[in-house]
């Protein structure tokens, strides 16, 4: 019985680990998870690996860069910017 109950807890915790990491759970839920983690090394181990995954993803853009900006395109972008600034001025902003 005990093992069954424990497994059930692990599964529930597993579903909430990202929200736990992101501090997006309410205080009560958060406490429940913390209590579970205190007594469950496998869940802690898994949580640590998920946390590491998230931090590895931060700023993990591809190193690829676009080709240099074509001067004609730059002029068009600048014209669009100028025009929208005129709109803004007309709206009195």
């Amino acid at each position: 019985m005990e093992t069954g109950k424990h497994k059930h807890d692990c599964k529930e915790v597993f579903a909430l680990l990202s929200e736990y990491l992101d501090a997006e759970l309410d205080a009560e839920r958060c406490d429940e998870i913390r209590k579970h983690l205190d007594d469950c090394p496998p869940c802690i181990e898994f949580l640590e690996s998920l946390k590491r995954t998230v931090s590895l993803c931060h700023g993990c853009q591809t190193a690829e860069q676009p080709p240099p900006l074509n001067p004609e395109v730059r002029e068009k972008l600048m014209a669009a910017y100028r025009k929208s600034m005129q709109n803004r001025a007309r709206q009195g902003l």
Partner: protein
Amino acid sequence: MATDKRQEIQLARDLIEGKPEAFDRFVEVFRSKVFQYALMMCGHREDAEEVAQDTLFKVFENFDQLRDPERVRPWVFRIARNACYMKRRKSVFAPTQELSLEDFLPHSEGDGSRKLEIADWSALPDDQVLRAELRDVIHQAIQELPEMYRAAIMLRDVEELTTEETAQVLDVSQEVVKTRLHRARLAVRAKLDEYLRRRQSGVAKG
């Protein structure tokens, strides 16, 4: 090159205030950012280049509508996301395969030991070679995700938007963002784990 959020906000503020000196830097920062995002989302270089250009056009055409410079990053990504949709190739219209939590539940070794069958993440050396390898594994893992999960992890974890901003960019509820993000992270974690286990068993063999 991770760009600083504060720098982006300052550039947007300068442009709103009509200081054109900020223009080239703004273009440089967001062109690169949108290109990289689009490359992960579309998978084709030429599509990504077009998305970056189309996005910047829309951004400047509608620049008078950006009220709050603090929101510049999600605002640009919302436009980029729509530009990516226009570029969707036929294969992307295939029905999305839903990722199930069950698929990612780790298994314990036998009974009683309560040891997980996962790599030893605590033993990761902090060296540059491994770091570069892990980045490749992450990119590969993200690109293999179904589109809706890919978008969630790209915006939340790679571009570091908030849940609320991501929900706005993707036009879904925050709950939906959280659900997709968790599954996406689990999928990427699983690929990293698989890679690390292979690497660690290789190292162990000498």
